[in-house]
């Protein structure tokens, strides 16, 4: 679909309104969200690295500045914050040149806000390569040479995911991964200690920081999902009872703008 049709013009603003309204409500009073298992393990992983006196590794995936990678940056910033408290450095290899300044800025902010700007070493954030497999080769090399004790993989991953997560597993690092690339989740499950699945990834920064805006957003997303389920059920009822109207609904949803 190149342009919005009427269904899009009705439903996207409606969904957006729900999310924004939930954010507004969340600013007034505190809201609850459930436990996300992989994320509770971050502190444990940082603790392990600190005990062993080894650095940690955080890979923000292959994406550039996009929605998924920004979320990944937020999660890695949290990891760096915990690491900063324990004086355990986080190595961040990036695969996109525009992400390099963003990542450096973010980590510097973290160290400044924790009151330890002197601990921040810009060389910990490194551009390696924007080519998928040379990036993978270099990350694998980094893991093996630095013997990173904890590895965090958050962001967009493709086939290369298995290369570094398996290498990390082989040297016995504690590993936590989360990605919206559903096809890579099986490989993370086979190699990592904790994996967060699907949109737990988007819920992560809300869960970690407890920012009202982010919590509200999560509640809004839940309401949107309820609405989606309702829509699917309505469609199923129509398809079952009045099948001749099914093409009408489909063309309303999918017709050209």
């Amino acid at each position, binding site marked *: 679909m190149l342009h919005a049709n009427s269904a899009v013009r009705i439903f996207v603003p409606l969904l957006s309104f729900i999310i924004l309204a939930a954010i507004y409500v969340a600013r007034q009073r505190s809201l609850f969200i459930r436990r996300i298992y992989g994320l509770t393990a971050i502190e444990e992983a940082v603790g392990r690295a600190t005990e062993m006196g080894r650095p940690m590794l955080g890979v923000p995936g292959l994406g550039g500045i996009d929605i998924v990678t920004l979320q990944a940056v937020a999660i890695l910033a949290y990891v760096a914050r915990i690491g900063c408290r324990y004086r355990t450095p986080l190595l961040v290899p990036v695969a996109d040149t525009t992400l390099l300044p963003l990542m450096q800025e973010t980590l510097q902010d973290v160290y400044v806000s924790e009151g330890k700007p002197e601990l921040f070493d810009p060389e910990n954030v490194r551009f390696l390569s924007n080519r998928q497999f040379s990036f993978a080769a270099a990350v694998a090399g980094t893991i093996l040479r630095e013997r990173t004790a904890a590895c965090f993989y958050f962001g967009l991953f493709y086939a290369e995911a298995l290369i570094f997560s398996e290498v990390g597993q082989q040297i016995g690092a504690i590993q936590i991964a989360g990605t919206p690339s559903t096809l890579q989740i099986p490989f993370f499950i086979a190699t990592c200690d904790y994996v967060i699945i699907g949109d737990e990834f988007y819920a992560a920064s809300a869960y970690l920081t407890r920012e009202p805006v982010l919590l509200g957003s999560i509640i809004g997303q839940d309401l949107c999902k309820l609405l*989606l389920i309702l829509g699917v059920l309505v469609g199923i009822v129509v398809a079952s009872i009045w099948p001749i109207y099914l093409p009408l609904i489909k063309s309303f949803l999918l017709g050209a703008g």
Partner: protein
Amino acid sequence: MSLSSWIVQNQNTLYLLVGAFATLGLYSVLYRENRLYRLCEHIFLGVATGYAVAFTWNNVLEPYWFQPMWDKGEWWLAVLLFPGLLYYCVFSKTYNWMARLIIGFYMGIAAGQGFQAFVNDLWPQIAQSFRPLWPHAAYAATPTHKAVPAVTLPQAFANFLFLVILLCVLTYFFFAFEQKNRAVRGASQVGRWVMMLSFGAIFGLTMMARLALLIDRMYFLLFEVGALPWLHTPSGRPSWVIFGILMGLVVLVLVLAHFNKPDRV
């Protein structure tokens, strides 16, 4: 014979030797991190970066920027250098905030494109979920003149299963409440099980694609490199010499691994 004509004449041999070196060098990491792997890794970084820079110039900056600006005289394109160089402000303490201007602009672009991506990904999936739960005959005449195919009993049953799986998995992904209710907890648990079913399937599915890559690499070594004239391989047959070298390396690695225990830190 000059060097350049020698290179041109022997380019295929050089191509094969370089390829064989790259293959064995990277595979050496299967034993452990070592100097050969590190060399290959750095060469890989070097050629990949060199290629990326040349590619950016050849395919992006030259055709979209330099050529129109310098050859066609479109001088106003010089202004693009400004936002491009703003990124480099990140290296300065005073001007550092200006890098955020351009980074913010691109974040905005990503967010703006998000609407179209959202609709194009989600809408068809919603429409395809409208599946009848009981059988019916085919209809030719509908308000939009599109025929509706018949639905058989097994299809209807499959559709029912589809709905159940969809709802169970979605239940797992609700965050707003503790999953205390038994029905909710049960649905969410089933949701996790079917997710594992799906993930196992994806794992198995990917196996063939990855093995095919390995087989193809072996074909490269045994047949293409094996066809080098001084190996005296009969044409169309794999090279025993290369096979011998490979197996020799394998035995060497196994013996070394037995005595060195490379996994111990």
